[in-house]
Structures are given as structure tokens and as C-alpha cells.
């Protein structure tokens, strides 16, 4: 047995180990990439925070989509819309009155709960008519619903609305101020203020990390990322239980052949409504945690591309596998989403470039002088790198569907039962 095979055997034993290996691998990669970008310790730790945060976010979203699509085969391409419903409902309930996109100023837990309920409700309403029909109709309805939601939020009509003497609104095209990042309460005396004296955890952690050269913002950001990781863990736990149960078994049967499931006495429509609602609630939750970190949201965060990001994360990991969803979320967020930006910073750091070529023609022309730097510089400009990121996503998607349609982990071997089925024989 080679070392690689031994490593594979060790990793193959449990999903937890696999997750650990992937996480450590991605961290190692970003630590190696840090000096190439010219990052100091603070910058390195911040880049690790960023991939942790995004990985947890896309892990949660992929898990929720996996429940709907991977398990029950419900083709929801309106993920962004349900995310928006969660965030904006939370904002309207809990944002401060009088801010841009005015809210009611209710306590944040009320807002979060309200956001979850609203996402659930909109999920049920959007899906009820379509769930009676074949899968394609659900796809059309959810995509349309998501766009209707985004355009409604964006509309100046709902920027500020007076209802029974209270002014609320989405902020329209200007976007909406959200309650401040709740984790700040643990670190600052006045969490709402831009600069405030430290309190509680801040008293202990700030001096220690500042001694190492890590800024307060990065410390607070890490604390928030840690909260997201915990929530990701809870969602994972929940969905593993949902999947590994008689309920999950019926979901799989619906995915494989709905007529068979109903011929065995399962009320498939009711199962579909329930699972769709639960998935939408979790999408709302993930989005709320995402936007709360910045205290601001606008309709441009809920373009259809957002939905496709989640699909790509799930396809990378393997639809049908909960562990795969989390790994797909991490790989997508770190390598495909953040990766190109890292490449840009590395190029900017390693090559001295005085003037970035204006056009591709200029950039290619300078290759004649055997100097690749201008072409590289041209490639990694802001505009081009985000376009190239989309190209990269497309290439990865085509490659996966051609060569690994089941994703990294989509072997669909997570047996839907609360007990080890083979145990009956081998006992």
C-alpha cells in the first residue's frame, strides 16, 4: 500500500475526516499563497476568514438545495429569490426606523424568525401550483418568482411605504440598511458606533491579537465566521437526520420515480411541499447570516447568477450527498470564487507593471518583446478577472458534467434509513 492509498483508506472511513482534510488542504493552499500576494499575518488571517465565511455560506446553501434537488429531485432555480425574501423580511422587521429602507426596529431574533417564516411561506406559495405538474414547470415558476421578487424589491414604489402610520420599505434601488452585525455586541461597548471602546470578549481578545498584528476587524470577522460554522454544523446535523430516515427514503423515491412512490401509498405531493418549504427556510437563514455580516443589502445580490453559484457548489460536491454539499460549498467558495482574486493579487505583487494595456491587442502585441507581464496585467484587471471567473465556472461545470456527473461525492451512498440496513444480516 502506498502512502497515498493509505491516506485514501484513512480518509474514506468517515465523512468527518474527509471534511477535515478538505478544510485543512484549502487553508494550507491559502497560507502558501499568502506571501506570494505580499500579505502580512493580518492579511493572511483575513483571507482565511474570508474563505471560512464563504465556505460556510455556500455549504449551507448547497445543503438546502441538496435537500430539494439532490434528495427530492425538485428543480428549484429560484434560490436567490428565497434568499432575498429572508433577508428583506428580516430587514423590515428589525432595521432601525428611519434608516434607508426603513424597518420596524423589532429585536433581531424576531426579524430572523420572521425571515425564515416568510421564506417558507413564499416557497410554499410559489411551489404549490407547480408541484402538481412535472419538474420543468417548477423550474420555470421558481426562476420567474425569484426575478419577480428581485424586481419588486428594487422598485422605487416599495422604497418607502406608509402602512397604518408606520413607514417601512426596501430602500428600492438604493438598497437597505440592516441591523448591525450582532457579533459586535460581544466585542464593543457600543456595537452600533463605528469606533467604540472594547467590552467583554473585546477586552480579552483585542490586546492579545493586536500584539500579533491582527486588527480588531479581523478578530470580529473571525468570530462571526465561527458562528457561521456552528450554524453550518447544525444545518448539516438536521439534514443528515432528515435524509437518513423513512422521510428521506420517500424523498429519494420521489426523485427516482414519483408514480412508484404513490403506488406504494405515499402522499408524494405533501412530501414535496414540506421538503420545499424546509429548503426555502434554510436558504433564507443562510442569506440572513450572509448579509448581517455587512449590515447592508441590495437587490443586486440576488441576481440569477447567485442561484447558479449554489448549483455549481452542489454539482462539484455531488447532488444527493450532504457531506458532498459541504465540500462542494468549500471548494467552490475557496477555489472558484476567491481563487481568481488571489491570482490577481499574486500577479499584481510579482510583476512590476507600470501601465496596464488598454486593449487585448496592445496586451498581445507586447508578447513580441517576450514580456508576458502586460498580458497578465491585462488579464487580471477588475473587469476581466470577474468575466474570467464566469468562464472558469463554465469550464468546470462542463468538465464535471462530462467526466464526473456525480460530483466529488455524489455516489448517493448515504443510505436513507435511521438504522444500518446491512446490520440486520451481519448482526
Amino acid at each position, binding site marked *: 500500500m502506498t502512502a497515498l492509498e493509505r491516506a485514501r483508506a484513512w480518509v474514506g472511513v468517515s465523512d468527518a475526516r474527509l471534511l477535515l482534510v478538505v478544510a485543512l488542504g484549502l487553508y494550507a493552499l491559502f497560507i502558501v499563497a499568502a506571501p506570494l500576494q505580499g500579505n502580512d499575518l493580518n492579511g493572511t488571517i483575513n483571507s482565511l476568514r474570508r474563505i471560512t465565511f464563504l465556505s460556510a455560506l455556500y455549504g449551507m446553501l448547497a445543503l438546502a438545495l441538496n435537500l430539494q434537488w439532490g434528495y427530492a429531485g425538485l428543480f428549484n432555480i429560484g434560490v436567490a429569490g428565497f434568499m432575498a425574501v429572508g433577508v428583506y423580511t428580516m430587514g423590515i422587521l428589525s432595521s432601525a426606523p428611519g434608516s434607508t429602507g426603513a424597518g420596524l426596529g423589532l429585536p433581531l431574533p424576531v426579524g430572523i424568525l420572521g425571515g425564515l417564516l416568510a421564506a417558507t411561506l413564499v416557497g410554499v406559495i410559489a411551489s404549490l401550483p407547480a408541484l402538481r405538474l412535472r419538474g420543468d414547470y417548477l423550474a420555470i415558476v421558481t426562476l420567474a418568482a425569484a426575478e419577480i421578487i428581485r424586481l419588486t424589491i428594487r422598485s422605487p414604489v416599495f422604497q418607502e411605504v406608509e402602512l397604518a402610520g408606520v413607514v417601512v420599505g426596501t430602500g428600492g434601488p438604493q438598497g437597505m440598511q440592516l441591523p448591525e452585525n450582532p457579533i459586535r455586541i460581544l466585542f464593543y461597548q457600543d456595537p452600533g458606533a463605528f469606533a467604540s471602546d472594547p467590552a467583554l470578549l473585546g477586552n480579552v481578545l483585542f490586546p492579545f491579537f493586536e500584539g500579533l498584528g491582527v486588527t480588531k476587524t479581523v478578530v470580529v470577522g473571525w468570530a462571526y465566521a465561527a458562528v457561521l460554522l456552528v450554524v453550518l454544523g447544525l444545518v448539516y446535523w*438536521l439534514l443528515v*437526520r*432528515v435524509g437518513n*430516515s*423513512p*422521510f*428521506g*427514503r*420517500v424523498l*429519494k*423515491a420521489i*426523485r*427516482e*420515480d414519483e*408514480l*412508484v*412512490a*404513490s*403506488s*406504494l*401509498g*405515499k*402522499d*408524494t405531493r405533501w*412530501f414535496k411541499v*414540506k*421538503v420545499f418549504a*424546509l429548503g426555502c427556510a434554510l436558504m433564507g437563514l443562510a442569506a440572513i447570516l450572509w448579509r448581517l455580516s455587512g449590515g447592508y443589502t441590495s437587490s443586486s445580490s440576488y441576481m440569477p447568477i447567485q442561484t447558479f453559484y449554489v448549483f455549481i457548489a452542489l454539482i462539484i460536491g455531488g447532488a*444527493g450527498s450532504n457531506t458532498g454539499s459541504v465540500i462542494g460549498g468549500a471548494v467552490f467558495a475557496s477555489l472558484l470564487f476567491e481563487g481568481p482574486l488571489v491570482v490577481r493579487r499574486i500577479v499584481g505583487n510579482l510583476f512590476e507593471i507600470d501601465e496596464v494595456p488598454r486593449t487585448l491587442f496592445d496586451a498581445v502585441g507586447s508578447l513580441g518583446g517576450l514580456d508576458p507581464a502586460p498580458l497578465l496585467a491585462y488579464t487580471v484587471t477588475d473587469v476581466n478577472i470577474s468575466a474570467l471567473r464566469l468562464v472558469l465556472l463554465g469550464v468546470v461545470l462542463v468538465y464535471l458534467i462530462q467526466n464526473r456527473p456525480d460530483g466529488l461525492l455524489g455516489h*448517493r451512498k448515504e*443510505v*436513507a*434509513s*435511521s*438504522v444500518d*440496513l*446491512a*446490520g*440486520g*444480516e451481519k448482526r
Partner: protein
Amino acid sequence: MSAGADPGAEPEDALLAVEDLRKSFGGIHAVDGATFGVAEGSLTALIGPNGAGKSTTFNLVTGVHRPDSGRVVFDGTDITRKRTYQIASQGLVRTFQIARELDEMTVLENLMLAPRHQSGEALWRSVLPGARRGVVREERELRERAWETLEFFELDHLAEEHAGNLSGGQRKLLEMARVLMTDPEMVLLDEPMAGVNPTLSEKLLDRIHDLKAEGYTFLLVEHDMDIVMEHCDPIIVMHQGTVLTTGPPEAVKRDERVLEAYLGGEVAE
């Protein structure tokens, strides 16, 4: 056995009674006034040439299609307008002409899916820690039954295989095993022997006879006349959407109209 005015068995004392069932698709009267009954504990065959309306009748009885008119009564309950899942949960389950396996589920998962009224099919019970313990207990018992059923059908060596990897004959066996896991009162078998090699089909028939002895009721659509004549009694013959005659194999074999129907052409009234 006299045919004529009332070719069906007496629907009143039958486990399944079909009365004057009709269904048209466009201009085609697929089922055109079919009336028959299936007695409890019998192994009844439903035969007829292609296009006689056998599969449509199955679909009407199991709620896959809604009949235009007529009545279906199962075990004393009118199930005419009920949904497929409601009919199945009353104990009337079916198999499909082309085996419909749940490809990306294992053989064991296929079987564990089937039992009716599983408490763990409620989302909250599967999730909440206290309630889940009851679900786990129930699953352990079902697992025992699943393994017994697999052994009965000699599929136990394939237990953890994905159903999509099974051969055609094995799929037929799995489909039958799955239907039995629902603990049904009556099973509708749509061409269970089609595409199954003779040895396996003998085995399947043995299984069916064993189960019949245990009190199960079967209604079977089959094209292999040797099998039908040897194993089934009574035999219901359908032609052009109606029931032509019903009777024991000897009577059906001698019925000239049956012969005519199979050879083609209209049947003179």
C-alpha cells in the same frame, strides 16, 4: 359458465369489484363498460389481445387515470375517485408492466420504502431526538422483515446493490418483493413474467402460489397462455374494452369467441 348478459363474477361478494368502467382517450374507447369481480384469495388472470384495455383497467383501478364513468369497489369501499396513494394505503397495490425500480436506491432501500404507515415518514419524528428513538425501533423491525423478504426471493446477495444494476428478471423479483413489503391485501401484477427466463418465472409462480396459500389475492395480466391456463382460475377475458367472458381455464379454452378475439376481427354478438 354461461356468458352473455353478465359475464363478470358477482361483484357483491368480491374483494375487488369493477362495475361498468369506461375511459376514452381522444376518440378511442380504451375501456368501454368493463364489469368484473375478483374473489378474495383467488389467483385471477386478466387476459386479452393487445389493446383490449387491460393495462388501462389497471390504471383506472389504481387511480393513475380517472375513469369517465363506472365504479371501483375494494373491500367494501368505493375507491373510484381516490388518489393512487390512498388506494395503495388501503392495501391494493400493483406492479408495473415494465419494472419501475428506484435505480439510485439500494435493493434494501427499495424494500424499506414500501411498508405502509411508517411513523418516521413524518418529518418531525425523524428529526426530534426523543421521537426518533421510536422511529429507529420501528426501522429495526422493518429491517428484519426486509431481510426475510430478500431471502424469500433469493435476492439477499444483492441487498446493498443499487437497483439500477439488477438484471431484468431480478428487477421483476424486486418489484414483487417490494409490493409484498407493503403487506397488501390484494396485488395487481402487470405481466410479471414478461422478459423473465423460464426457470425464474417458475420460481416466481411458486412464490405466488405460496403467497396465495397465505391468503393473498392476485389479479394478473399475462400474455403467456400456458402459464395462465395452468396456474390461474378464474380467467377474465377482455376484448375491445369490455369483458368478453369469465370462467375456469377449461371453459375459456373452449370458448370460440375468445379464439376469434385473439385471431382478430370483430366478435359477433
